[in-house]
C-alpha cells in the first residue's frame, strides 16, 4: 500500500479485546507485561506490529525518528514477546506555542487486547509527561466510530476536543476525533478542528514540506 500524503496524524487502536468475556483472570505468574527500548536491532519488530495493527505503511523517517525518541517510543512485551508499541513525539502548536505530547501510535496485537498492555503503555506515557512537568497536554487522533478506544482514553481523563473531517484518506469513516487530556489551563481552541496542521518535531519553522514527506498515517476503523 502506498503511503498516503495526508497530514501527520495519530493512529491509536483500542487496546481493548474483542469477543466474549474472559472466563476468569489469568494467573498473574504467567501474565507479565514489560516495556522495552526500541533499538536498531529490533526495529523490525515494531514494523511487524504496526503492519498488522494499522492499515498504514509508515515511512522510513518514522522509524529513524523512533530510534531517537528514547522513552517516548517503547515496545510492549507480554511474557517476553513483543505484542505492542507506543510511539509519541513532542509537538509545539504553532498558533498558541503550547507544548504537547502527541501520541502517534499506540497499539497492541489483537490476541493480546484487554490484558492491560494498553494501560501499561499509556501509563508509561502519562508518567513521562508528569515527570517532565512542562507539558500543556497530551493528544491523539481516533477514528470517530472507534467507541472502545474513545472509552479507553476517557478512563484516563481524555476528552474529545475536536473533530477533523476527511482526516483519513482511504478508510471509512474518514473522520477523526481529537482526544486530549489537558494538563494546564490553556486557551481553548474549542470544538473546531485544530487550526494549522501539526508539524513534526519541536520547531514549527521546520521545512514546510516535511509533513508531506513525513509519516502520513491513518486510523483503522
Amino acid at each position, binding site marked *: *500500500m502506498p503511503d498516503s500524503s495526508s497530514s501527520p496524524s495519530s493512529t491509536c487502536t483500542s487496546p481493548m479485546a474483542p469477543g466474549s468475556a474472559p472466563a476468569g483472570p489469568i494467573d498473574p505468574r504467567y501474565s507479565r507485561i514489560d516495556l522495552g527500548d526500541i533499538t536498531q536491532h529490533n526495529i523490525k519488530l515494531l514494523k511487524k506490529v504496526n*503492519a498488522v495493527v494499522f492499515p498504514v*505503511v509508515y515511512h522510513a523517517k518514522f522509524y529513524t525518528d523512533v530510534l531517537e525518541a528514547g522513552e517516548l517510543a517503547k515496545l510492549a512485551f507480554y511474557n517476553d514477546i*513483543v505484542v505492542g508499541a507506543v510511539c509519541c513525539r513532542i509537538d509545539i502548536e504553532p498558533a498558541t506555542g503550547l507544548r504537547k505530547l502527541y501520541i502517534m501510535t499506540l497499539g497492541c496485537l489483537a*490476541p493480546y487486547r484487554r490484558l492491560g498492555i494498553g494501560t501499561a503503555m499509556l501509563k508509561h506515557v502519562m508518567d513521562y509527561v508528569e515527570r517532565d512537568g512542562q507539558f500543556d497536554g497530551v493528544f491523539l487522533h481516533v477514528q470517530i466510530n472507534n467507541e*472502545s478506544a474513545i472509552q479507553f482514553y476517557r478512563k484516563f481523563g481524555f476528552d474529545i476536543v475536536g473533530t477533523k473531517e476527511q482526516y483519513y484518506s482511504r478508510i471509512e469513516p474518514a473522520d477523526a476525533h481529537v482526544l486530549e487530556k489537558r494538563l494546564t489551563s490553556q486557551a481553548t481552541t474549542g470544538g473546531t478542528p485544530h487550526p494549522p496542521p501539526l508539524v513534526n518535531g519541536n520547531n514549527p519553522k521546520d521545512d514546510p514540506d516535511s509533513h508531506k514527506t513525513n509519516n502520513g498515517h491513518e486510523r483503522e476503523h
Partner: protein
Amino acid sequence: MPSPHSANTATGSSLPPKENAQFKRILKCYEQKQYKNGLKFAKQILTNPKFAEHGETLAMKGLTLNCLGRKDEAYDYVRRGLRNDLKSHVCWHVYGLLQRSDKKYDEAIKCYRNALKWDKENIQILRDLSLLQIQMRDLEGYKETRYQLFQLRPTQRASWIGFAMSYHLLNDYDMTLKILEEFRKTQQKAAYDYEHSELLLYQNMVIQESGDISGALEHLMKYEPQICDQAHFLTTKGSLLLKLDRAGEAKAIFEELIQRNPENHESYKFLEQASGADTPAKKLAIYVKYRGFYPKAQAPQRLPLNYAEGQEFRDLVEPYLKKALRKGVPPLFVDLKPLYKNPDNCAILEEICTTYLKHMRANGTFDGKTREPPTALLWLLYYLSQHYDYKSDYATALQLIDEAIAHTPTLIELFLHKGKIYKHIDNREEAAYWMDEAQVMDRADRYINCKSAKYLLRANQVKEAEEMCKWFTRGGVPAMESLNEMQCMWFQTECAGAFERLGKYGEALKKCIEVDRHFTEIIEDQFDFHTYCMRKLTLRSYVDLLRLEDVLRSHPFYEKAAFCAIRVYLRLFDKPITDDDKLNEIDTENMDPSELKKLRNKQKKAKRKAELEAQEMQQLQARKELHNKSQKKNDDELDAPQKDELYPDKLERPEDPLGEALKFLEPLQLLAADRLSTHVLAFEIYFRKRKPLLMLQSIKRALNTPNTPPNDPQLHSCVIRFQKFVDENRQSFPAPVSQVLDRETQSIFADKSAVQRNRDFLSANDQSLNHVAVGAEMSVVLDGSEASQKAALKLIGELERFKTGVDIKTCSDIFHKLEEGVYGSVGVAGLDGFRQSCAQQFPLTILFNPELKKQSKTTTTSADPNEPKSGDNSSHEVPDSEP
C-alpha cells in the same frame, strides 16, 4: 621461543673476552626479542676477519634473522655456522630451534640429540627435547629425557611431575604411583591449596586407571580434607562405591549430590543405579519422591517421562506440557523429541495437544477450566507444528505455523521453524528466505545470523551467506578470510558442500583443505600446554587433552570435510576438468540477430562486472598485504611459516586425485574405523585404483562396522561391483592375489554370481526404496542393455508400493542419479515420469513440482538486507478485531 643456551658457560668459548661479551649480548637480545640489536652485535663480531666464520655467531645470526621472517637467509647462516663448528651444542641447538619453528619436529629432535652429544647435561636442551618428544608422542624417548631431567634437577616440582607422567602415558601405573607418592610426601600442605588438590585427584585418576578401585577409594577418603573440588570428590566417591557394589553408601552420596544440584541428570542416573532401580516402576518411584522434595526442579519432572508408558505417561506429561506452554518454553519440542522414539508417546502427545488446541481456540483454556494467557495458544501452535513436521506431515505443519504467525507475527522462533519446515521439504531457497525473515527481526542474535548463513549455503548462495556472516566478523578483512582465521568450521564445511553442488570443485577443495589445516593447527597448539599444564598442575585435564589430540581427526567436522574432499576427488578422477570446460558453449550461429544482440550485451555486462570485481579484489589484496606487513612489523615473533596459498584452479586439476583422496581418508581409517562410510569411500578409491586386495580389505572392514546390517545398500553396491571386477580381471591377477581373493571372498560372495546375488537382494528387500534403488542401479551396472535399464526404471518408478524409504531425500537422490544417467539413457528419458510420481508423494517440494517455483519466496532478489522484503507490504488487510 626458548633460548639456545641458558645455564651454560661454554658458549662462545672460542672467542676472546671482548667478543665473548658481545656474543652474550646477542643471546640476551634474542631473549628480549631485540632482534635488530642482536644483528648489530653479530655484525660487530663477524666483521672482524679473525671471527668472520665463527660458527656459533653465524648460527645465532641465522636464528635472529628467522625471527624477522627472513627464513631462507636464516637457514643459510645456521647451516654455515654448523659446518664451521660441528662440535658446538649451541650450533646444533640453534639448528633444532630453527627446524622446530618450521614445524619439522622430527628433524628438530635429531638436532637436539646431536647437541646433547656435546653437552650431555644441558637442561634447556633436555627440556626442549622433552617437549618435542611429547608433542610427537615419542613416549619412550620422553620417558628417558624426563628421567635425565629428574636426575639433574631433583628439587624441582616439574621434574617429578614430568617423570611420573612419562610413566603414566606408557600405562606403567605402578611406577607412576610410586613417583607421585614419593613426591607427595615432600609436599608442604597449605590450608587451601588447589594445586595440591589437583595433584591428589590426578594421583587418584592414575589409581583408578590401574584398575585398583578399592585402592582409589581408600586414597580418596584418606585425602578428603585436602581436596577442594567437592562436587568431583563426591561424584568420584559415589561411582567408586558403586563399582565396589557398596550401593547403600553410594546412594547416600548421590542423594547429597542431588541436594547440591537437583538439576543434574547424571546424579539421578547414578541414584537409579545405587537404588537398584532396574524396572521402570522402581525408577518412577524415585522421581515421585524427588518431585516432592524439589517441586521447582525440572529434572525430576522430565526424567520420569523417559520410563513411563501409556496412561502413566499421559498423566505425567500433561502437567509437564501445561506448565511449559503457560510459561512459554521455546525448546519444549526439542526437550520432548527423544520420547517420540516410542510411537505410542507420539500418538498420546498428539491427542493431548490437539484437544488443547480445540479448547484454546474456543475459550482460551486447555480443558475448559482455567483461562490461559494468549501466549499459551501461540506456543501450542508452535509445538504442534513441530510435531507434524517431525511426522513429515508438512502441509499441516505449515498450516499451523502460519496460524501462529498470524496470531503473533513478532515471535522469531516461528519464522525459524517455518524455514526449517521448508528445509525438510527440500525447498532450500524458500527455507533460506524464512530464515532471513527471522534474522532481520533480531540482528543482534548471532545464533539466528549463523542459521541464516547456513541456510543460504544450503541453497548454494555462497556470496549471500558471506554477506550474512559479515554482521559478526571483523571489519577490514573479507568475511571469508575472517571465518577461516577464526576456524569457523561449520561455515567452511557447509561452504565446501555448496561449492561441490555448484560444481566449483576447486573452491570446494580449498574449503576442505582449510578445515584439514585447522586440525593440524589445533594439534600444533598443543605445544603451549606441555609447559603450562605441568606448571599449573592441572594434570587431569592435561592428560585428557593429550588423549583428545590423539584422536582429534575423529571429529565430525573433519569427517564432513574429508568426505566432501574425497567425493570431489573421485569426481575429478572420473571426469577430469579440462580447460575447455570453462569456455562458453553457447551456439551463436543459430541465433537470430536480436537474441545475439541480447547475448552480447549480457556478455559485455558480465565482463564489466567481472572487471569491477577484479579491481575490487586487487584493492583488497593490496590492503591485505599492507595489513600483513604492518602485522609483521608489530609481530616480531613470526614463528608460523607462511602456508602455501590455495588456488582453486590448481586444486581442481590434481595430478593424482586418488592419492589426494587417500590423504584425507587415512586419518578416518585410523580414527573413524567404526563408520561404514569410511570404508565405502575407501572402496570407491581402491576400486578406481583397481586394487583388488584393498577393495577386499575395505569391504571386510565395512562388514565389521557396528550396526551395519549385511543387506546395507551402500555395502551391497560395493560388493557387487567388486565381484564384477574380480570376475572380469581374474586372469590378470598374480597367483597369490587370486588365492587370497578366492579364500577370502568365499563367505562374501557365497557361491553366487553377481547377477544372482543382486536379484536375491532385490527380492529380499523389495519393500524398501533405498534397497531397491541400489539394486536397480547395480542391475544396470551388471547389464547395461536397454531391457535391463527399462526393468530398473520400472522397479523404482512405483513409489506407492514401498513401505520404507520413500522420503524426500531418497527420492531427490534418485532423481539426480537418473538425471546424471546412472540408470542409463532409459533412466534419463524416464526422469519426468519419476518426477511426477514423486510429485504425488511430495506435493510441496519444488524439485518435483517445478510449477511451485513461481509462488515460492526466495532471497535472491533482495539486494539490500536493510530494506523490507516484498512480503512486508502484503499484509495490510484491516484486522477484524474490533467489535
